[in-house]
Structure formats: C-alpha cells, structure tokens
C-alpha cells in the first residue's frame, strides 16, 4: 500500500491556469447580456483615449504656432502685443557679440472683408535681406536648397510696389487667386487692396496657420500696420554655441527700457502653462464620464457575477480552490474588458477627430490665442493609457462580486440562488463613507492653502465617489415614505416593484449613484457656466452705458476685436447724431513673468458715468478712484489680479513700457474677465504717452438725445463702411456678445449632456432588465395567478421612475456641491476668474425632467419584455 500521508494531490487545476477555455465557456450565451458592459467600457476607453489624444493635439498645435512664429530665431525682442519701437534698435542688437542676425519684423493681423472673414497673420520682413527671409523658412526647405518656400516672380517689382503681398499657395487656391490679382484686406487703418506678387509654400508657420499667412516687405508693413520706421519685434539668430541665457542678458543691456529679449521657448512654456489649465478642466470632465461608464460596467458585471454566484459555489463544491475560482472569474472580466478596448480605441480616434476643432476653439476663446490648424495624431501612449483604463475597470468590476462569493460558505451560496449576496459589513461601509468625507474635507483645506486646482480635481473625484456611496443611505432614509408610494403608483404589482428596488439594494444604489453622477456632472458644469455668465452680465451691465459700441467686425484672437486706428474716433464724431465718443484699447501685456490684460479707457469714460463704468469691488470713494485713474495717477486692477499677484490697494505696480518702467499705485479693485491672470485699467492718455500705441479695440458712442439709434447706426455704416469693416453694438447687444463668448467656451456641455443621457439610458435599462431576468419565474407566477400584461408594464415603469427621481436627488446635491467648489475655489485657481455663485434653477428643472424621461424611456423595452413573457415559459425558468 502506498502511504502518501502529507503528500499533496496532483493539482489538476493547473491545466486552466493560463487558459481562457473556462471563461469563454462560461461567457458563451452571455455575450448579449454583457453587451452593455462592453459598450460602457468602450465608451470609457474612448473617452480617456480621446481626451489624451485631443489634449496632446491641442497643445502641439498651439506650441507649433508659437514655435513657427519665431522660425529659427533663438531670441526675440518685443514690447508686448502692441508696443512699437524703432527699427534701428535692430542695429544695436546686431552689434552684440554672439548675435549672428537681428531681424526687425512687423507681426500683425488682417482680415478678408468677405463672408469667409479669414484671419491672416501678416509677417513684414526685409525681403532684400536673404538671410532675414531664411530665418522663417523650414528646415526642409533649407536643406533641400533648390526649392525656396517663398517664390517671388519679380523681386524688384515686389519691392517697388507698396501693395505687393505674398500669400500661401493654400490661400491662393482657396480664393482662386493667381499672381498679379488683387486681394482686399481689412487692416487697423482701414480696407486696403494688395496685389499678389509671390506665393508661399505651405510649410512651417504657413502650415501651422492653416495657410492663413501673408508676407509683406517691411516698409509696406510698417506703413499699414505700425508706422514708418517702427517695428514690434526683432528676431535674433544666435551664433553657433552661444549660451542663450548669457546672450539674452547681453542683448537686454543694449535695449531701451521696457523692451526685453526672451527666448521663443518662453512663449512655449507660457503656452503650455496656459493650455495645461484647460487640459485639466477637460480631464475633470472626462473623469466624471469615466466614472459613470465604470459604474454601468460595474453594475452589469456585478449583476452577471452575482447571478452566477451559485455556479461559483458549485465549482467550490466540486473542489476548485477559492483562488482558482477567483482567477477564472477575473479572466472573464478581462475578456469583457478586452472587447471594450477593441471597440473603444477606434471610437476614441473618431471622437477625437470630431471634437478636436470644438475643443481647440474653446481654448482659442478662453485664452485669446490664434486659432491653429490642429490635427489629431494617433499616439501609442494615448492608446495604451486607454487600454489600461478599460482592462482595469473590467477587472475592478469583477473583483468585488467574486470576493463576496468567496466569503460565503459554499452551501449558502447555492441555497441563496437568486438572492443578492451579502456585501461588506455595515461597519466597513460606514468606515469607507467616513474616510471619504474626511478625504473631501482634507482636500478642500489643502486646496485653500496650496491654491492648487489639482486638489480641486481630487476633491471632485472624491465627491463623485461620495455620491455613489450616498445612494444606499438615501434609500434607507427614504424607505418609509417610498415603499407605500411605490405600491400606490404601481397598483397591484406594487409589492413586486418595491421588492425589486429594496431587495436588490446594491444594484439599486449603484444605478441611482450612476444617475446621480451623470446628471450631477451636467448640473455642475451648468452651475459654472451660469455663474460665469451671470457674473459677466452683472459686471458688464454697469460697464456699458453708452448707446452704441463700435468695433471692427474682425476678431484678432479669441474674442478680442481687431484693433483700429484712433482716427476712427474723429470720423465718428463727425457723424450726425453722435454726441460724444470714448475709446478703449484691450491688449495682453507681460507682467512678472505672466501675461495680463491692459484695459485702457479714455478719461471721458473713466470720469463720468455717461459711458458706463466697471464696478468696484473694493476702493474708497468710487468717484475719486476713477478720477485718479483718469488723471493717470493710479490704476484699478481686477479681482484675479489681486489673487494671482497678491497685491492690494495702495501697492505699487511696475509695468515695463516701451518708454521705460512705469510705477503706479493700485487705487481700486474691479470685477472683469479680460484675462485669466489679471486685468489693469488705466487711462488712455497715459497709455498712448508711454506705449506709443494709438490703436483702439472699441469706441463707446453717446448719441444726441432724441436721435433714433437706427438712424445713427445707418449713418455710421454709410459714412465709414467702405473704409472700415465695422460692427455696431447696442449696450444690450454688447452684453449678449460677451454672453455668447462664454457659451462658446462652454459649448462642450451640450455634448457631455448627450453622452451622459445615452450612458444613463443604457445603464437604467440594464438594471431594469437584470431585475426582470432575476424575477422571470416570479413574473410567471404572477401571470398564472392573474396579473395582466399592463400590470407588469406599469411595475417596470414605476421602478424606472423611482430610480430616476432618487438619482436626481443625488445629482442635485452633487451638482450644487461641485458647483460651489469650482466657482468658489477651483475656477479662480484654474482660470483666474472670481465669480459669484448662481444656481441654474432652469437647468435643474430641465435635468429633473430629463432624469424621469430617460428612465421612463429606458423602462419601455424592459416593460414590454416583462409583458410579453409567456407565463408557461417563465414558470419553467431556472
């Protein structure tokens, strides 16, 4: 006899260790039921992949524009957006050791005066200087040698004729332009006609701008866009092996006050920082959608594994080890996750291509950037991230149910077939809830001290998780009134409806949580948009009191109107019906390493209230404050300027101007949204004196009392329409314009709402169907006793309505909490705007209706299914 005490029997289970035979066998016949989980995982994968792809593409596009703007230059000299300085400064810079080339450049914006309204970036460069021109050619063109990017048929004629212009081949083809033909452009000094005498190949900067680039000789460019002898940038090419930092210092030493040499990289870093905050917001939204999809998949997979817990018990009864059971179930979830990934990856690319223009546009609006030609490039790293998310979500979804099944004694698992498995102990669940609450509180405290929006994002995720965990307590709290209400609503099938809701609390809570998060995210974003919009309206309404506001009909970048020459003011004053005018200049300006907005007004605007005035948030006597600004002895700064630069009333601000540093005290604080970093209001008298800039973005117009507004508008259009392409707003239209910009920046909410509703529709329908499958035999019994089809349909619809109503309660709480968090803390840190909280009551009502409608619609198919079950078949259901 072979004594083998203590020897372990051969482990036959090893045969399955690396095989998918068992999982595939278990899954066969369940693919349709698991289709929802696959779809949800696919959406999650697609969302994550899409956001990563788009974020990279957006950043790349804007950075490419910034990089290409400088060509091969390693340093650039500028006095900000609008500062002009003499061209002769380039000669001084050229004399600095280490400078190979110093190229004076005019960079400006022009528009085509037709329905296309193309925004052209104009580059004015000395075309007689071949070295200067080559700075802007691409490496490819330089290396090829034979093919030049800029082809000019007759350089002498080009230079001799001041109306000569070179356009890109792309633009020429788009507009059907040939060499020798004319093109009209709206410039700050009015409408001008140019003759195409050169063609640019679409490479480098031209390509980055989507072909919207034009080149003039620098003399012609100065005449139209700056003034003769004045440029707004000098590009520096360093000699080989020159230290750029040392070179910048050396160049600064020869520059006039107010002008600095900075590496183009600085722009890239600046852009990256600016874009990063936008990317963070996009990730925040994507993560919410990810959580919703995860919950749907989790719910479905949990139901699937729960229904098969007795199978796990059977496996265990036969002798399969707990870890082996867990392993095989996990492999099933990997298969499901894998299917989700296969579907989701191409979907992410398709979604990315579709949404990229919209998201790039939102960035353009928000950060007042030049619109780049953003292209989606499929990168492996994005796809890998999305794959990990998909598989990870599927595995996580399987982990809990298998853990539960493994905890219960085998006999009980089989005996409790059809009954929800016991979950974690109540103590454990409350501990998790407590930890979550503590986590939320901690992140909020840390965020307020660290002033970092990343903590806000962490808090957002914790609040979303808390919403899910609050679903079960909500159900418990409302149990007493809800049970009778359900039974009343559902009639004779009330007990069944309530049983489906209450006796499957985990599934019910997950579904409610999913609805809560999905709709809560819509409410959250709506609260932010509404708060921004209402605060803007509140601020704008007081700032705009003139009857009319005149501006260029072109937009330079983002939402800023293209500048026009101040001579337009004199032209306006001559028009009958115009009583008074006041000019406004709005531009970006560097300050302490960041970019702020200078919002410059004529003293007439600042002194009286007849044109309007920005409301002061803080400041002594308002009249006195604005008088000081009007006289040029003080500035008013915005609330986000105070937040970012930690300055207050009485502190001095030093602004580097083209004529030297300007030290000026803060005398008041206003609420304005011209820049995410901060805005400074100052007098235009002071500004033109120190910046040499006589351009305007808007002109406020007061009309003669009694003169009809339409008549004045018509007179302006008649007199000045041929010279300038103007847009004339009434005060209300101006406010509406700003509101439209805010809505443009939040255009994505509409897309998110649709995605969320689709996800919820699927999720709720799935929960109802799962409940019906579980109760198939019971439904057969009910029908055998005399329940009508209509009774069963009503039962399912009532279940759906209850889920929707409870989900909305959670959504309202989550939306308000996150809305408060983001408006009060995260938005100011992320975008710099300080806004008042406004609750979107209309949206809340709409979301409540949507919740019920979606759940009723989701219930229709399962209700039909329940009604059409053949009683005899249902009775035999195992």
């Amino acid at each position: 006899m072979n004594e083998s005490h203590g020897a372990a029997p051969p482990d036959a289970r090893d045969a399955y260790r690396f095989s998918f035979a068992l999982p595939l066998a278990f899954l066969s016949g369940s693919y349709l039921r698991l289709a929802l989980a696959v779809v949800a995982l696919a959406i999650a994968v697609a969302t994550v992949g899409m956001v990563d792809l788009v974020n990279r593409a957006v950043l790349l596009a804007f950075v490419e524009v910034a990089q290409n703007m400088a060509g091969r230059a390693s340093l650039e000299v500028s006095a900000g957006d609008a500062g002009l300085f003499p061209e002769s400064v380039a000669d001084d810079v050229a004399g600095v050791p280490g400078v190979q080339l110093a190229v004076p450049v005019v960079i400006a914006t022009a528009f085509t005066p037709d329905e296309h309204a193309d925004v052209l970036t104009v580059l004015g460069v000395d075309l007689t200087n071949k070295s200067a021109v080559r700075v802007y050619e691409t490496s490819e063109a330089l290396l090829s040698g034979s093919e030049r990017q800029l082809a000019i048929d007759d350089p002498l004629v080009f230079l001799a004729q001041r109306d000569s212009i070179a356009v890109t081949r792309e633009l020429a083809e788009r507009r059907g332009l040939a060499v020798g033909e004319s093109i009209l452009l709206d410039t700050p000094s009015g409408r001008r006609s140019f003759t195409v005498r050169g063609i640019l190949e679409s490479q480098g900067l031209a390509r980055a701008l989507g072909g919207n680039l034009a080149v003039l000789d620098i003399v012609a460019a100065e005449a139209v866009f700056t003034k003769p002898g004045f440029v707004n940038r000098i590009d520096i090419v360093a000699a080989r092996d020159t230290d750029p930092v040392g070179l910048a210092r050396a160049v600064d030493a020869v520059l006039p006050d107010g002008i600095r040499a900075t590496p183009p990289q600085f722009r890239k870093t600046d852009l990256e920082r600016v874009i990063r905050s936008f990317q963070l917001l996009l990730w925040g939204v994507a993560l919410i959608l990810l959580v919703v999809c995860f919950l749907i998949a989790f719910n479905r997979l949990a139901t699937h594994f729960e229904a098969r817990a007795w199978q796990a018990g059977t496996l265990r009864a036969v002798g399969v080890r707990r870890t082996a059971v867990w392993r095989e179930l996990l492999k099933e979830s990997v298969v499901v996750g894998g299917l989700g990934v296969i579907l989701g990856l191409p979907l992410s690319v398709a979604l990315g291509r579709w949404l990229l223009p919209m998201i790039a546009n939102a960035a353009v609006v928000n950060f007042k950037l030049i619109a780049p030609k953003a292209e989606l490039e499929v990168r492996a790293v994005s796809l890998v991230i999305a794959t990990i998310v998909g598989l990870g979500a599927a595995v996580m979804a399987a982990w809990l149910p298998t853990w539960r099944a493994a905890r219960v004694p085998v006999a009980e698992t089989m005996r409790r077939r059809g009954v929800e498995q016991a979950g974690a102990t109540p103590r454990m669940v409350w501990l998790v809830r407590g930890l979550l609450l503590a986590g939320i509180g901690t992140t909020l405290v840390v965020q307020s001290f660290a002033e970092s929006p990343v903590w806000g994002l962490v808090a957002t995720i914790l609040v979303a998780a808390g919403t899910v965990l609050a679903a079960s307590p909500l159900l418990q709290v409302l149990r007493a009134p809800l049970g009778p209400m359900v039974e009343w609503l559902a009639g004779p099938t009330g007990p069944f409806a309530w049983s489906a809701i209450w006796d499957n609390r985990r599934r019910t809570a997950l579904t409610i949580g999913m609805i809560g998060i999905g709709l809560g995210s819509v409410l959250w974003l709506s609260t932010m948009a509404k708060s921004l919009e209402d605060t803007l309206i509140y601020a704008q309404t007081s700032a705009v009191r003139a009857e009319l506001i005149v501006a260029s009909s072109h937009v330079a970048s983002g939402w800023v109107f293209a500048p026009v020459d101040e001579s337009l003011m004199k032209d306006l004053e001559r028009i009958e019906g115009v009583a008074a005018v006041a000019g406004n200049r709005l531009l970006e300006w560097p300050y302490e390493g960041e970019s702020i907005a200078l919002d410059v007004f004529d003293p007439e605007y600042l002194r009286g209230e007849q044109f309007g005035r920005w409301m002061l948030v803080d400041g002594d006597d308002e009249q006195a404050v604005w008088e000081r600004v009007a006289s040029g002895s003080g500035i008013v700064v915005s609330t986000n300027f105070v937040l970012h630069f930690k300055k207050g009333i009485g502190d001095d601000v030093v602004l580097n101007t083209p004529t030297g540093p300007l030290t000026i005290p803060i005398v008041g604080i206003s609420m304005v949204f011209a820049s995410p970093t901060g805005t400074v209001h100052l007098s235009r008298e002071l500004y033109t004196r120190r910046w040499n800039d006589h351009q305007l973005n808007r002109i406020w117009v007061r009309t003669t009392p009694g003169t009809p507004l339409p008549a004045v508008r018509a007179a302006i259009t008649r007199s000045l329409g041929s010279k300038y392409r103007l847009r004339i707003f009434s005060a209300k239209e101006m406010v509406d314009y700003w509101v439209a910009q805010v809505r443009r920046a939040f255009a994505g909410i509409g897309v998110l709402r649709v995605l969320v509703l689709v996800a919820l529709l699927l999720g709720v329908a799935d929960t109802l169907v799962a409940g019906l499958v579980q109760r198939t035999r019971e439904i057969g019994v009910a029908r055998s006793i005399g329940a009508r089809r209509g009774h069963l349909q009503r039962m399912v619809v009532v279940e759906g309505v209850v889920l929707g109503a409870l989900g909305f309660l959670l959504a309202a709480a989550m939306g308000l909490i996150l809305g408060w968090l983001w408006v009060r803390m995260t938005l100011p840190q992320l975008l710099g705007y300080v806004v008042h909280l406004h609750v979107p009551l209309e949206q809340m009502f709409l979301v409540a209706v949507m919740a019920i409608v979606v759940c009723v619609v989701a219930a229709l198919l399962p209700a039909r299914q329940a009604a059409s079950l053949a009683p005899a078949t249902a009775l035999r259901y195992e």
Partner: protein
Amino acid sequence: MKSNQPAIQMVNVHRRYGDGEQSVGALNGVDLSVEAGEFVSVMGPSGAGKSTLLNLMAGLDTPSEGQVFLGGYDLSSLSDDARSDLRLRSIGFVFQTFNLFPTFSILQNVAWPLGFLGVRRQDARARAAESLEQLGVEPRTHARLPAELSGGEQQRVAIARALVTRPSVLLADEPTGNLDSRMGRIILDLLRRLNSDRGVTVVLVTHNTLAATYGHRTVELRDGRLVRETRADTQVGAARVTTS
C-alpha cells in the same frame, strides 16, 4: 363561471412545440371534461404532457388545435387580459416547487394576489392570515421568509395563496413532488378536504399512484393521449374516453 357548465372542458386539444418535422406533440387530441366540484387526478410518466395539460386548463398556454373551456368560457376567444382576469377569479395554482417569493414574508406571499382584485392592503393581510390559519400555518410564522420553513409548510403556504382569492378551481402540479411521504399525505388530505368541504374543483397532476387515489376519477396520460380513465370506486377498468 357560467352555471350548468363543466368547470373545465377540453375538446380535441392538440399542443405541438416546434415547426414541421421538428415539431413535438405534447398533447395529441385530448378530450376531457371536469365537472364542478369534482376531484380529478391526472397521472402519467414524465413527458406525458401533464404539466402542458394543466397550463392549457389555466389559460397559461394556447392549444395548437382544439378548444379549452373554463367555466363555460372558450379561452381561445378571450383576450390575454380577459384570460388573466378569469384566472385571477376562478383558478388557484399550486406548483411543485412552491414558487413562493423568497424576499416576501409568508403573509405577503399569500396576500399579494388580492391586490389584483382591488382588495385594500389591510383587508388583504387579514384574509391572507385567515387563509393561512385554515391550512394550519401558525401565526407566529407569518412574518418569516419562505426559506425559514420546511417543505411541507411552504407547500401549505402555496396552497393558502392559491385559495386566498376563493377560486372555484384548484390546479395542483405535482404538489407533493418535493415532499416526503408523510408530508405528501398531509397535503393530499388537505386537498381532499378542500374539495369535499368547500366544493372546490381540484385537478391534481401526479405520478404518485397513492395520490391518484384521492380523486373521484383518475385519468392517465401517455405520449400526450388520454389512455385510461378510472373511477375511484372501481378497480383498474376500461377507458371511458377514447382518443380520437
């Protein structure tokens, strides 16, 4: 139910499953009449068509051919809702596997059908308690879940549920199939008392010969056909009803 009509009548009833050559005949030309107040046992081996016969009687299934009358009403001429209503008012169904709802208490399991009759909740619970007591289910168990009762107790609860709507016909599909012999006899005694004391028409499907003797009449099904009929006071005799 119409008076002077048999409680249940089946005329040349066929029930086939599947199509064409693949079709299987569960019932093949069955003619059967059950008078009001009668106790009929239906016997036969597995697959004989007993459960199909019961489902057709209850209107849970429709015949491929032939007619089924319940209380004088031709079930095939009624809408699904009308069949449901008839079932609710006229028929009690007892299943082999009890089919009690695992998350409902005993009282809830018995009371819920009354909701479909428009009975108010309190009244329904009172009637359910009464029904349970009549079947010997003690009040202290009314709040328990089915899993906490023995098989016999569960079947008594199932019968209480079937009777709570005061039907005139009770259809029992192998009600003792999952019970031991002692409990099975108790249940069968219960059914006989219901028939004799309350006049409930009982159709009992069973493959247990002892159970078959409880009825006034026993009919035998084989391969979907009625092959024999015997009365309780006769020994094994010739078939009274011939198949077509």
